[in-house]
């Protein structure tokens, strides 16, 4: 069944969108990532204009993250205090990111930079996670201890310390704020929740326990992506509600299933899977940039200045 999207101004198959939403929703529930890093490129591939894909995806992430976080509330695996600190950084970053996005759009380079960002971030994060989690599985006791100690030293040197009871941490608020700002920028530019950056940053940089990481990152993502959605809706008019509804119907159902699956799997196995997924998307996008495109020219609306 074809459906016409009022803002994107294209006609696409409704079941394809539901299916994409469901698939990405399952990953979202399992890994605590918004799934935007996967969904945004997929939307490009089915012909949604990039600016609409990025803005609408932010809206859809709100839904899937909200659905996901409720399950974590019940299991009490959300560190609200840490989430709020991350959020302060996130909102600042998102505002800055939208300004950059609009500037790049007027330059005609937004596609390239979005894709480059994806390749670089996904490549580094995916690679690191893959190696780390393989090591963790191989020698499950010895690996984590030395790494934690190393992080303790570095982070304990910073001022403005705060106690995060749920995470069992007493650290400076500077690293979480910096992580938040960074993720906020990515949220606005790449149409992602930023979970794929935040989850590893929380585990490796802040040293948070894996079980609170997912709930806390979802908590932060809801607010940052909601803010991003509003900014895109009011400055670019690129949030497509019809597209978002289809994606989120599939997405929220998928997220519920994913959260259940996540409960039955070990953290290390989850991370290997996530790392592979990240590397796969990275590889596909890198190929698009490296191989000669079949059409060297592209058309764009003459907006901006």
């Amino acid at each position: 069944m074809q459906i016409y999207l009022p803002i994107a101004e294209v006609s696409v198959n409704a079941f394809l969108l539901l299916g994409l939403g469901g698939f990405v929703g399952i990953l979202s529930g399992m890994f605590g990532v918004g799934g935007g890093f996967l969904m945004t490129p997929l939307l490009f591939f089915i012909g949604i204009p990039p600016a609409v894909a990025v803005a609408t995806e932010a809206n859809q992430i709100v839904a899937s993250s909200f659905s996901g976080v409720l399950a974590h509330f019940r299991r009490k695996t959300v560190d609200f205090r840490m989430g709020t600190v991350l959020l302060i950084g996130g909102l600042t970053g998102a505002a800055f990111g939208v300004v950059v996005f609009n500037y790049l759009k007027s330059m005609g380079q937004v596609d390239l930079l979005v894709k480059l960002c994806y390749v670089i971030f996904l490549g580094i994060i995916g690679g690191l996670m893959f190696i780390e989690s393989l090591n963790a599985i191989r020698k499950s006791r010895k690996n984590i201890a030395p790494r934690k100690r190393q992080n303790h030293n570095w982070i304990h040197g910073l001022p403005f310390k705060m106690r995060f009871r749920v995470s069992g941490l007493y650290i400076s608020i500077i690293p979480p704020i910096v992580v938040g700002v960074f993720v906020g920028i990515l949220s606005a530019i790449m149409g992602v929740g930023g979970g794929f950056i935040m989850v590893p940053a929380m585990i490796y940089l802040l040293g948070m326990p894996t079980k609170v990481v997912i709930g806390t990152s979802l908590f932060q993502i809801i607010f940052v992506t909601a803010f991003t959605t509003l900014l895109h809706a009011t400055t670019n008019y690129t949030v497509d509600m019809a597209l978002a509804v289809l994606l989120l119907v599939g997405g929220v159902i998928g997220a519920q299933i994913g959260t259940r699956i996540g409960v039955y799997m070990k953290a290390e196995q989850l991370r290997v899977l996530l790392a592979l997924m990240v590397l796969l998307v990275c590889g596909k996008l890198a190929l698009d940039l490296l191989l000669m495109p079949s059409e060297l020219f592209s058309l764009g609306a003459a907006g901006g200045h």
Partner: protein
Amino acid sequence: MFRWLLLILCIALPAHASEEVVLGLSQDRVAITATFDGSEILVFGAVKREAAIPEGPPLEVIVAVSGPAEPVVVRRKEKKFGIWVNVDSVLVDSAPSFYAVATSGDFDVVLNDVEDLRHRISIERAIRSVGAAMHIKGAQEFADAIIRIREKNGLYQTRENTVAVDQQTLFRTSITMPANLTEGAYQTRIFLTRNGKVVSEFETAIDVRKVGLERWLFNLSRQQPLVYGLLSLAIAIFAGWGASAIFRMLRQG
């Protein structure tokens, strides 16, 4: 001699002016609804004439439908530092968002170049005539790219031999419009030609509009963007909560 010339003119002029188009359209408006999946418009008509059918080559018919013209930026990619990036761009001041031209015979038989230039009927003319940036070196490539890309998407169509003409009087054709249409008035021109020359021209418009929910959402997003954004978020949060609640009920019940 002068008298002969006058006589010829007298015969020729009324013969040209007396052939007029009486047009019918299967629909003069296209409504873009939620399930809009392109549209096919039947264009049919008759040639009204006072005198007998003139001698010589038969009457040919051209139907040209043109969507609203808008500026287009065409960007070209080049390999830089190992990756393909947009290096330069040309702004084409105005190119129709949709252009379909159907003819009753081969294009160059139905219409000669001079007449094409004057009436801007072929796709190439419809674009090139308006591009102000065309003096840039290699700009032709960019104009060709618009045509190539839009032809691939079904937005530009040249359909030769698709107008059926009966008895040099009745004609009909159908124009296929894809789903990704731009809103606006679609200028529809009918040309009658003889021997490659335009003898009569008729113009009307097909109105392409979003309707219903599509219209409402689009207007809201432009006129009340904050309300639109908040509504999007409300739907998202409600859907997220709803799915969570339903799944909890399913698991417990």
